């Protein structure tokens, strides 16, 4: 098991340069705005040159960019993402994110669970009954999941269930988990269906193709020749092998899930991270945008490490060779 720890450390060390690069780009990018960030931010309201200079000074924008980056990165390293520039001026970006993260996290987690619960069995069924009715059905579901825009699916759910069937919790405002567990979950049912089904298509497709590959493996034939039952072969031999590469798709899919969360939050009017990002763009609140994008990037880098470590843990070929 020592090798697993070594692998985690090695993998984490490898992430440092990426994180550094990501943070530099995130920081530098927003200063590339034509005319400077403050001018752009203030472009919608009249502001004199002095006012702009005032704000620039307030926000420490006259320092050389590497000093600004250094300050920002040093704070970020200590978990401080700075303060909002805009209407919510002065509010710590941390607070804004912390306030909204439970909702987005809950939405993403539940959607992920739903997607796996649909995608994995659908993929297995598709592969086992290849080219039979069950397979075609699973493929149609998967392809629809991928092709239907999730935000539109959300709207359609509201149109059908919220409007036609008058189900109150199909739409309407979100209730924090701390207030009412059932109320909270009820209001998340449709957002989770919206987000989870889109993502399940991706998993189902990958699982099916990996299952087909696995079912063609020599070890399947060996197991058959030893009289192992088909059920055991499908679930113990093939599915475990197929799941390992699918795990990476689940990892990559996190990015899709984040996209989806952004849109789903907008559709269902949920006050999550996505909504904060969208409003911050509209307000040109650079500090908040930087904070969120960095936060998302860190989540991705960390989840990629987790996926890789899980992958290594499940696949002895990687685990025992130290991950090269």
């Amino acid at each position, binding site marked *: 098991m020592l090798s697993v720890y070594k692998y985690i450390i090695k993998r984490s060390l490898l992430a440092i*340069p*990426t994180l550094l*690069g*990501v943070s530099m*780009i*995130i920081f530098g*990018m*927003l200063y*590339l*705005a*034509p005319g400077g960030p403050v001018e752009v931010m203030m472009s919608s309201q009249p502001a004199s040159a002095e006012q702009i200079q005032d704000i620039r000074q307030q926000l420490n924008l006259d320092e050389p960019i590497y000093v600004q980056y250094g300050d920002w990165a040093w704070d970020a390293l200590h978990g401080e993402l700075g303060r909002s520039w805009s209407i919510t001026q002065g509010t710590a970006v941390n607070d804004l994110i912390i306030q909204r993260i439970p909702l987005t996290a809950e939405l993403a987690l539940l959607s992920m669970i739903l997607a796996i619960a649909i995608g994995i069995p659908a993929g297995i069924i598709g592969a086992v009954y*290849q*080219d039979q009715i069950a397979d075609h059905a699973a*493929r149609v579901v*998967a*392809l629809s999941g*991928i*092709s*239907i*825009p999730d*935000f*539109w699916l959300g*709207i*359609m759910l*509201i*149109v059908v269930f*919220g*409007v036609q069937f008058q189900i109150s919790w199909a*739409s309407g405002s979100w209730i924090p988990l701390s207030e009412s567990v059932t109320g909270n979950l009820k209001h998340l049912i449709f957002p989770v269906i919206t987000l989870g089904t889109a993502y399940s298509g991706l998993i189902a*497709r990958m699982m*099916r*193709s990996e299952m*087909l*590959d696995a079912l063609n493996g020599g070890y399947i034939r060996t197991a058959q020749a030893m009289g192992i039952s088909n059920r055991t072969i499908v679930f113990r031999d093939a599915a475990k092998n197929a799941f390992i590469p699918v795990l*990476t*798709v689940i*990892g*990559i899919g996190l*990015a899709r899930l*984040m*996209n989806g969360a*952004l*849109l789903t939050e*907008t*559709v269902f009017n949920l006050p999550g991270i996505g909504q904060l*990002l*969208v409003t911050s*763009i*509209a307000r*040109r609140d*650079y500090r908040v*945008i930087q904070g*969120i994008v960095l936060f*998302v*990037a860190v989540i*991705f880098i960390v989840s*990629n490490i987790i*996926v*890789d470590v899980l*992958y290594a843990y499940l696949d002895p070929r990687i685990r025992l060779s130290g991950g090269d």
Partner: protein
Amino acid sequence: MFYMHILIHEYVYQEGTKMGSVSPDSEADQNKSTTAQRSLLQQFWKNYKNNYLSIAGGAIILLLVLMALLAPILAPHSPYEQFETSDDSKFHPAEPGTEIILTNGDGDIVEQTTAYLGTDNVGRDILSRLLYGLRTTLVIGLSVVITSLVIGSLAGAIAGFYQDSWIDNAIMRVMDVIFPFPSIVLAIALLGVVGIGETTYSLPILGTVAVPNTAKIILVISVVYIPRFARVMRGAVVTEMEEDYIDALRTIGASDFRILLSDVIVNTVPSVVIQGSLYVGTALLASAGLSFLGLGIQPPQASLGLMLSNSRDYVYSGEWWFSVFPGLLIAITILGFNLLGDGLRDALDPRYQGEQ
């Protein structure tokens, strides 16, 4: 390699390009690339021609492209004209089949017609806006893929050609940094840089340049896909460089540039183009998503995502047509590209046969 899925990506790609090397050995080395290509094409067509689903996808796309191209002819009205309902008891958005009229400044009726798919919140004909919106959406989807394909492939080809050199490292590390971002989050962040709406830039030498909003959207979404193409291309080029004919070309004194351009890239283009067809759907989805958030195409321009965005306020009041039709059209378009792309990929790499 940094992320495990990159490995998978490259692995899939190398598998896909192997087919190119299955060619009769009797041919002379110099002819090998063309023979390989011909046999690849033949193999490809043999694998593809019975995939009716994919051909259906292609037909859908062809039909949609024609509809978009012929929008000025097919659309019953201008997408910007705001109609009134002839029946005063009806308000916008008016349901499908409503009689609508266009009046001039004096209140005279200039035109009387039917809104077959209803009208939107300001009285514009949904059918006409759908056709023009499809135009915008297709242009963005295809432009994104072409832009990122060209830039990404070039970067990937250079990286692969100079494998393990500092150029390779520099290019691929930048790609590694971009890769993990969710497409819409990245696009939004980039929009923060370039701003929304048309912007005039004062640039040295070029003077002032007005960059239209559509171009900006194409650009920011393209950035998301560049690393994908770069990786695919790099993998393909690295595999290709191991072929014997490269050495043969070197011996006869061909320059690096010539080899890269006229031999390596030519042989790897089919795989990259097919990969591209797979990304049109997701690029479309991203652009529609961006417009849906109000950060993409700006009014009054017609776009399917923007129509959905406008329809949001009318969802609860039961004006279903406003949101159903644009979404349905997006779904059909993406479905068409997915069917087409899947089939093309299956044909190139039979390992995926039947995965739809």
